[in-house]
């Protein structure tokens, strides 16, 4: 799992004033990532046991993860007239059959309960006169989620035996005899390498952004939909440790407001704004389906056919509706309100232009992530996964991630009972610390992490179905991408860093390159086109149910990605 110091260009010639030192910590359950799922796991454990928990969080749990800016609706909720069974059916339809009904069902059963818990924590919900939540569409309720993350973090902080390690980047699992028994990470505020031992580990690091060239590659390169600080660390650690992963070819591409990459659902569902093209035609009527990927695909298609740009038709909404939209966006994506005010053209006077984002890998929206069982165990003993990093269960959104965090917490509590803590030998720890220190030494490279990142995004954009090619790819192009990414990985491994911020950036780019290789292997493996845009294989442009109602899974063995195809109709448990 650990590259030897030699591979990192370790050299005694260049001293570094601040040597990293190891610090060992012990706990019952280690939670990696204090976002939506991770916080809820910790809360569940504290409410149900006296287990000792460590949350290791790269940023600060107060505003880390996807919910930093807020969220304005809970998009996974069983509204009156719907059932957990109908939710499973809805997810199945949207994902063209490639879902794990067992995972979606166990989530759907508990969505409303966790939503009520959010209300107990202080999240405001919009209600009718009888106190029922008001819905926005069939599966969504309206809230004010601006403060949702600080509320979750505050609920965790004083509870039970939870230690929060903010600003610590976990970079690898500790694996003993095939079992995950902890993880290692480095601090960003001090030169400390944490070696954390645990009886069970829950991975809740989120998905991966920044793999593809973004919509705004210049000054506003991080004005993207998904959190740019979610860099796929949880996926990459699992891949390196040989965990089975699923559905990395089912990329998520969001339909967003142009430039600000702000959500469109709030406008589309909120003021019932249809999608129109430059001729004012409501083009969705001309396409067969109106599922999430098809709404995006239709927009891409209209542009390709010379009928762009496309808009959400908001012109003519009332002044009151406009002000309510301003407020709704301030509660989750303030850039959109700023843009409306700054340009003096609000949605009542000008339609809102829309575009597709770059592709992301995110298990809370599509199915990419760890292959898990119903208890949320990964294929690595001792390791569980929850939230965006866990696969097989699209359309989790916030509430689904909370449920998954809760299920993983309960499973971890049961699993830790008969486990003893294991630890590393001194020389093993020395090796890990030396690896970190070696990143500061060695020959100066002509490149920087930023340069490698830009090149990786360009390769993915051009050869692996990014925005530039209308999200389509060919197998021949994927082969080029694979080679180019391997070259970039070699260049990245030779980089030296000057400070801890650069060290973090180095580990992030190595993780992203690792995730990209798995994305490419999965895209090449599915020899059909299952979801337009998400996975548009130009060599096999049709959907092929006869052969491809299968999960595309993979495992990395001896540095090689091995594809495993699993029938959707078969048994889910591994």
């Amino acid at each position: 799992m650990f590259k030897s110091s030699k591979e990192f260009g370790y050299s005694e010639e260049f001293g570094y004033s601040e040597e990293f030192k190891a610090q060992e910590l012990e706990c019952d359950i280690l939670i990696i990532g204090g976002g939506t799922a991770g916080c809820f796991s910790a809360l569940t454990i504290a409410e149900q046991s006296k287990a000792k928990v460590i949350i290791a969080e790269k940023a600060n749990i107060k505003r880390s993860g996807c919910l930093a800016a807020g969220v304005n609706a809970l998009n996974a909720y069983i509204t009156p007239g719907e059932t957990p069974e109908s939710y499973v059916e809805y997810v199945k339809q949207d994902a063209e059959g490639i879902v794990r009904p067992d995972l979606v069902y166990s989530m759907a059963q508990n969505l409303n309960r966790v939503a009520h818990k959010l209300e107990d924590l202080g999240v405001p919900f919009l209600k009718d006169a009888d106190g029922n939540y008001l819905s926005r569409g069939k599966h969504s309720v309206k809230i004010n989620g601006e403060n949702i993350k600080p509320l979750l973090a505050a609920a965790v902080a004083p509870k039970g035996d939870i230690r929060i390690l903010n600003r610590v980047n976990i970079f690898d699992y500790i694996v003993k005899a095939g079992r995950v028994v902890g993880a290692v990470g480095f601090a960003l505020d001090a030169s400390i390498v944490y070696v954390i031992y645990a009886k069970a580990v829950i991975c809740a690091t989120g998905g991966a952004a920044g793999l593809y060239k973004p919509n705004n590659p210049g000054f506003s390169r991080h004005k993207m939909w998904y959190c740019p600080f979610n860099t796929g660390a949880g996926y990459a650690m699992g891949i390196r440790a040989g965990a089975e992963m699923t559905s990395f070819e089912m990329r998520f591409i969001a339909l967003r407001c142009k430039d600000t990459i702000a959500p469109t659902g709030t406008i589309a569902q909120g003021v019932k704004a249809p999608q129109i093209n430059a001729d004012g035609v409501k083009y969705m009527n001309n396409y067969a389906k109106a599922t999430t990927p098809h709404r995006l695909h239709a927009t891409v298609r209209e542009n390709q056919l010379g009928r762009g740009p496309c808009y959400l038709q908001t012109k003519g909404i009332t002044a009151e509706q406009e002000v309510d939209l301003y407020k709704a966006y301030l509660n989750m994506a303030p850039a959109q309100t700023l843009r409306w005010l700054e340009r003096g053209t609000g949605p009542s006077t000008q339609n809102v232009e829309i575009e597709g984002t770059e592709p992301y890998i995110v298990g809370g929206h599509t199915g990419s992530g760890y292959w898990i069982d119903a208890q949320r165990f990964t294929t690595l003993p001792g390791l569980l996964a929850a939230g965006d990093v866990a696969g097989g269960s699209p359309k989790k959104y916030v509430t689904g991630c909370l449920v998954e965090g809760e299920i993983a917490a309960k499973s971890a509590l049961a699993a830790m009972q008969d486990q003893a803590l294991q630890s590393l030998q001194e020389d093993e720890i020395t090796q890990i610390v030396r690896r970190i220190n070696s990143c500061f030494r060695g020959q100066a490279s002509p490149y920087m992490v930023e340069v490698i990142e830009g090149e990786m995004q360009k390769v993915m954009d051009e050869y692996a179905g990014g925005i530039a090619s209308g999200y389509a790819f060919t197998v021949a192009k994927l082969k080029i991408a694979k080679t180019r990414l391997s070259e970039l990985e070699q260049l990245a491994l030779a980089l030296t860093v000057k400070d801890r911020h650069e060290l973090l950036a180095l580990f992030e780019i190595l993780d992203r390159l690792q995730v990209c290789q798995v994305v490419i292997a999965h895209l090449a493996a599915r020899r059909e086109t299952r979801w337009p845009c998400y996975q548009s294989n130009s060599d096999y442009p049709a959907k092929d149910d006869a052969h491809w109602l299968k999960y595309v899974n993979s495992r990395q063995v001896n540095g090689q990605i091995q594809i495993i195809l699993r029938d959707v109709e078969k048994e889910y448990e591994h």
Partner: protein
Amino acid sequence: MSISINSEQCRGCRNCTEVCPGHLLAMDAEGKAFIKYPKDCWGCTACLKECPVGAIRYFLGPDIGGKAMYVYTNKTNACLEWHFVTPNAGEKIISVNRSDANKY
């Protein structure tokens, strides 16, 4: 899009440097916060909401339609006030009651 920090207003409390999910803010030699990596800002505005004196300004880059307006926040007991300031110092305030759910 990014933020800037008015160093005359900054009191050096470090709330913003601690909350930034991207580790993008740092303290200068005078003990004032500044953004060290402006191109890496996500625009989450967590820092604005942490700043007790409204010293942090969020703005859009010209690549996404920015025309030099900026916004800062001020918390009252019930509301989060968003102050939008134009280049000629005109100001518009949108006040969002924190206990109100979104209508959309």
